[in-house]
């Protein structure tokens, strides 16, 4: 992501000589298909979301009734919205600690710690990411199942007690079960990004640190971490943005339950629009999510600009 602005300014500086000359027509014709799909499915719906958040309408009652900002006033007082918002934040914070923390450790081990089996190990750790979240969620529903689940079996064999209503049925535990599955599936993603960045660190820096008497642990803190600063910021932003986008895993594991305890903004939007049929209100929640996502996007671009 941080290359974006660099590319933009590079392109601005160099007026490229092109085999197409400076023909504007060719250029516009070539971007036209992309632009029209973009306009139809992203730009226009984006504007409609903003506008129709001020109207009351639903699946069964398509006539739109103007209600001004009352949906937004309702959001402020909506307990379920705040549960969902808080859950998104909890998912973001735990994601930063667990996925980036463990991903960093794994990447450091793969980069400089061990010599053999690297490609097999990274292939294994990365594998859950290419499998659909729905498939992964169903697998973990089995693992958490109170009757046939493997965790139940493990706890029983160890003589430990398990939650009475099951791991996914207990409102105090279910969110953390979801976070655990997210950790299991996505840590490899952070590992791969961080590993690629570590491999770009000049080896001379490590040689120099070694001459100064630094061991492998010290050179991790004195060489690797400072060099990774920018990539770590990008990782944090990617984690936070995806925490606010989470939907599939919640849908398949708990559908937001028990009793809204694992509701997130994504599932709350879908529930309002397509289950309850309050599409205008769903649009208003969407606008809140949009503001957060675009805000984070701007932070991401700003961060990369400041570093150059």
């Amino acid at each position, binding site marked *: *992501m941080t290359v974006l602005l660099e*590319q*933009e300014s590079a392109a601005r500086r160099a007026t*490229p000589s092109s*085999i*197409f000359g400076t*023909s504007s027509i*060719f250029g*516009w014709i070539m*971007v036209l*298909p*992309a632009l029209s*799909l973009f306009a*139809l*499915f*992203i730009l226009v719906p*984006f504007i*409609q*979301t903003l506008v129709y958040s001020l109207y009351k309408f639903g699946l069964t009652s398509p006539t739109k009734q103007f209600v001004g900002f009352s949906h937004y006033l309702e959001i402020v007082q909506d307990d379920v919205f705040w549960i969902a918002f808080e859950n998104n934040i909890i998912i973001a914070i735990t994601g930063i600690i667990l996925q980036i923390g*463990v991903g960093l450790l*794994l990447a450091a*081990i*793969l980069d400089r710690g*061990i010599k053999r089996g690297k490609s097999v*190990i990274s*292939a294994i750790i*990365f*594998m*859950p990411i*290419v*499998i659909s*979240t*729905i498939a992964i969620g169903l*697998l973990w529903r*089995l*693992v958490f*199942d109170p009757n*046939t689940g*493997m965790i139940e079996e493990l706890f029983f064999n160890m003589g430990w007690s398990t939650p009475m209503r099951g791991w996914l049925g207990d409102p105090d535990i279910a969110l953390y079960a979801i976070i655990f599955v997210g950790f*299991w599936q996505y840590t490899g993603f952070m590992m*791969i*990004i961080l590993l*690629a960045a570590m491999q770009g660190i000049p080896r001379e820096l490590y040689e120099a640190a070694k001459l100064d008497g630094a*061991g492998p642990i010290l050179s991790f803190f004195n060489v690797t971490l400072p060099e990774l600063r920018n*990539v770590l910021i*990008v990782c944090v932003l*990617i984690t936070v943005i995806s925490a606010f986008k989470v*939907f599939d895993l919640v849908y*398949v594991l708990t559908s937001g339950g028990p009793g809204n305890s694992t509701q997130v903004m*994504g599932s709350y*939007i*879908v529930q309002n629009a*397509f289950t309850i049929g309050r599409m205008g209100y769903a649009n208003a929640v*969407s*606008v809140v*999510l*949009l503001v957060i*996502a*675009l805000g984070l*996007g701007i932070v991401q671009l700003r961060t990369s600009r400041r570093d150059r």
Partner: protein
Amino acid sequence: MIKMPFKTLRLMMYVFIGGYCVFILTPLSWMVFTAFKKRGEIFANPSGLPNELYFGNFERVFSSGIGTYFLNSLITSVFSVTGIVAISTLAAYALARIPFKGRMWVYMLIVASYAVPLHAVLVPMFQLLDGFGLLNTLAGLILPYIAFGIPFTVILLYAFFLEFPKDLEEAAKLDGCSQLRTVFFIVLPLSKPALLSAAIFQVVFVWNEFLIALLILTSKEVKTLPLGLTSFQGQYSSDWGAIMAAVLLSALPIVALYLAMQKHFVRSLTGMGK
């Protein structure tokens, strides 16, 4: 800092990362084991190896239509990814190599749209597809997939074309090659690795996409795999053997593709970290 011999440290690292691999592989192996177990055995022995290979679970999911879901996912993936890569290549090439007026605006617009989450435009998109009469059709799935695949792919390919050697294009021009011929016969063949990376990333996205599919597909004949999996779950409730057989079948092609094309896939992903 505690001084410890490097050998001990290295051993600890092997133990840690080996343990982590076991942590990843154990649930995956439960998926495979359960798919081959009879119902009674799943209850009696949840985590062990199956006593014998039982194929009844697979027979059940085939007879309840996983073949249709599979075909739908395949059709959707082929059309979406071809569309995404073709349209994004045109756009990225023009943005990077043709200095037409307004191109920076187009590029910034596409970059900005990358930050727009799908949930935030769900309701209008649903109404748009409804208006076109595209609910419950694969076309209604493919069009938004292409639209949402374009921003990331354009960003990825723009970076590639920006660094593409200009001399090659100019040499072709001197040899009397027309502009379009140059693009099709010189530039594109040399861009194969970049296009492949972009395509594989999108295959994984499209094959696994769930939210749009959930909203616009309701009849069984048009459902894609992730959606089909959730309906199996509703249908079989606690028949974990059948559910895991379906999960295994849906994951196999994409895992095989990933293992075969690992390098390409990782390359497009690491682009995000830059």
